[in-house]
């Protein structure tokens, strides 16, 4: 059983912190995505979980076992964890079959057992016909499947994946995402998946941890993350959102109202009285002649079937709206805001 428990985890590289005080818990069998801008510490967190690096502070427990503290740690080879590298890290001197069977050789299984389990792993990833090729003779997607088969074959408690699809083209990514979700369903292993593609994270993960500057900003299901961001960073990073400050709020028994951009609108929130900002997503804005917020179209982008309008309101705020009808740059229009999400940010 492999739930992963992280307590006050920190990592400092040559004086600069890459991770600061992370405390969280990944449940057994969950598919977790780590999402965040470049340099936020995703790879660092993953390498600490795998045991390739040692934490500067804090502890990591996998299942019942404490695997790392700042002073001692269980080496990666004794953790029973799978790791899928962005660069695949296939051993170029071994054919596909040996790449996949190597973990079993290490575990000193008998020849027939090795053969049977290797064949099963190759079949599960659709690689049976490539078993005797060398890694250099495979395409990118096939290589990534070999890496996955190698990781699957030894039935790890947890699988860590560092941007496994970043080197692949868009079409291949979609089909590989399916391979990963299948793999997760079949094995029930805890998966921690690093990506900076939010669509990928949303599509696959049970929960997403959004990271920035070495901290987890919010850790929730994809839906919650999108609809109820906790702070400005998450609101702006996930989906297309504009964050605007709240001038004043009033609340009665049933509804919270906020004054933004010179108008008074109804908002949703869980923070009640202290809300300071609202997050305006395209679906919160509708275009109507009678809209009480006046704005001018600054740019039009065709998204296929609909247009994304970048508009500038009278007070100078940029707002994003989506329409089916085409507008010209410079056109004046009215916007109506419908119950956006409000949060407090200090």
């Amino acid at each position, binding site marked *: 059983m492999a739930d992963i428990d992280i307590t006050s985890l920190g990592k400092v590289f040559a004086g600069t912190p890459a991770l600061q005080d992370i405390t969280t818990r990944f449940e057994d069998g969950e598919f977790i995505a780590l999402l965040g801008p470049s340099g936020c510490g995703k790879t660092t967190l993953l390498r600490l979980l*795998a*045991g*390739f*690096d*040692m934490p*500067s502070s804090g502890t990591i427990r996998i299942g019942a076992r404490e695997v790392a503290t700042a002073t001692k*740690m269980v*080496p*990666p*080879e*004794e*953790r*029973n*964890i*799978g*790791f899928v*590298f962005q*660069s695949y*890290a*296939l*051993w*170029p*001197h071994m054919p596909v079959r040996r790449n996949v069977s*190597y*973990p079993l050789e*290490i*575990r000193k299984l008998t020849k027939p057992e090795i053969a049977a389990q290797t064949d099963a792993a190759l079949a599960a990833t659709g690689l049976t016909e490539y078993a005797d090729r060398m890694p250099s003779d495979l395409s990118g997607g096939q290589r990534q499947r070999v*890496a996955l088969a*190698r*990781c699957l074959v*030894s039935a790890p408690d947890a699988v860590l994946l560092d941007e496994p699809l970043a080197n692949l083209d868009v079409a291949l990514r979609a089909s590989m995402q399916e391979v990963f979700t299948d793999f997760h369903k079949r094995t029930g292993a805890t998966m921690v998946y690093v990506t900076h593609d939010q669509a990928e994270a949303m599509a696959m993960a049970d929960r997403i941890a959004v990271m920035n500057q070495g901290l987890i900003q919010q850790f929730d299901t994809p839906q919650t993350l999108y609809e109820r961001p906790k702070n400005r960073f998450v609101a702006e990073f996930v989906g297309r959102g504009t964050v605007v400050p709240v001038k004043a709020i009033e609340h009665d028994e049933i509804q919270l109202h906020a004054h933004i951009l010179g108008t008074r609108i109804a908002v949703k929130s869980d923070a009640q009285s202290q809300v300071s900002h609202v997050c305006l997503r395209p679906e919160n804005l509708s275009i109507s002649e009678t809209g009480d917020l006046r704005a001018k179209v600054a740019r039009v982008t065709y998204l296929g079937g609909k247009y994304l309008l970048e508009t500038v309101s009278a007070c100078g705020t940029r707002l994003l709206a989506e329409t089916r009808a085409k507008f010209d740059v410079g056109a004046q229009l009215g916007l109506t805001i419908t119950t956006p999400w409000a949060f407090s940010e200090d």
Partner: protein
Amino acid sequence: MQSALQKGGSRSEYRLLSAILILALCLTLAPVLRLFIEGVTDQGAPSLSLVKSVLAQDSTLNALKHSLITAGLGTLVSVVLGAAFAFLVALTDLRAKAALVFCLMIPMMIPPQITALSWTQIMGPSSVLLKTLGIAPPLGAPQPLYSPEGIILLLGIQHMSIIFLTLRAGLRAIPQEVVEAARISGARGFRTWWQVVMPLTLPSLAAGTAITFVTALGNFGIPAMLGIPAGYVTLPTLVYQKLAGMGTTVLAEVSVLAMLIGAVAIVGILLQRFFQGRQNVYLVGSTSRPLAIPLGSARLPVEILLWAVVFVILVLPMFGLLATSLVPAYGVPLRFDTMTFASWGEVLFRQPVTARAFANSFSLALGAAVVLMIICLPLAWLMERHPTRLSRLFDSLLDLPYALPGVVLSIAMILLLIKLPFTEATLYGTIWIIFLAYLARFFAVMFRPVQASLKQLDPAMAEAAQSVGAGLFQRLRDVILPLSAPAAAAGAILVFLTAFNELTVSALLWSSGTETLGVVIFNLDDSGETAMASALAMTIVFVVIALMTLIQLFSRRFPKGVVPWQT
């Protein structure tokens, strides 16, 4: 310790790194340190009196002067020859460049005593080749190579490849755009070369010059074969003569001489590092396509000229050597009816000393190659993964035993091993002292290619093995070893090649029963058995060329920087 644990985090790796690092430090740096201590102490107390008295002797000053003259002017010859070849090969559209480069490497790989022997066989009154052609000078005429000029010429030829290699590497690093920009702005031909290419290559030329000077300074084979008959003594031959004449009683004295050579050499090494460092600052940019300035109608004449030079410095002396090895007695002209393989048979199959020397050199070279491979592979990998302060220090000093003249290292080895600490035992006079000296001397030859190939290895390769449960030795055996095997093999062949032919170190360390091939050739020539010396030398040349061809055949599979003549 702390920094090693922060990264990688495996204690077994750190323990192994410390163990091998300490072993390597003892092997390579302890002798040098021991030598230094010997020079500046007198019966245990720090003293400079010995240094003063040795430096005041006329013989020392004369030898120093001769060393500086021959090494200095020899370097000049190397620079002229090597630079001309480097510019033409790297910048123009010559044909058959690979073959040319390969041929230019051969002089560096052929041991200097054989170079000297072969050249004496095409000049002078007793040259079999000249006699056969009927153009030999009259008997009694002097051998023109037994002179400072002869030493300078041969040192120049022997080391031109060093200049050629460093300069060519520097030229290849020049971004093509730089030259193209100059041509767009209207500079053409000679002007581009002089105003754009030349200034950019000065650092690598200077670095190559410094290292050539150090190598020439430490050369023993050429001044020994050409200088001793002429009474022209350089520092390495002075050390040899003193030690051969008076044995280990003069050890303290010769260690001062060794330190003198070492001091001059270190100045050269520091200069080389300085210029190499400057080079990196200059040359950044894409180097996708090599430069290929068309020579036009001058191409054929230039090619003919270059190959003629190769013929004169490489093929001609070999003909001389071959001719000498085929005559029944030294001095007899070579004709079809006088031609005989008697010397070959005698030296290769009948002389017990040759068989012994073959066995010695072979086992020494093989042993050094194998042991160094076993030490260097894990060491290079662990140093790459856990750079500690100690490992960085070692990295910057490990070239020292190779860069320092062989004489210096031999004296250091004698001092270190003549009386083993805590016992009465000695390694002096046994084959082990030569073996340990070889390990120290050729450490860098093995380590650098392995290091270069491991630097290019994705760390994820080993981490992937680690994540599926492979322990340290399994990772080394199943992933690191196979992936760096080509580089390790190339390194091992180079170690074997250089150790097999080596003379300078073993000249001071051999004793009856532990002769090496280099020593045997030197002694045969010294005792007038020139025909046999030539036959043995020819055999060695064939071995060298065969091994080089082997490396060449596999060179495509090596990462960049492994095969020395393909930088």
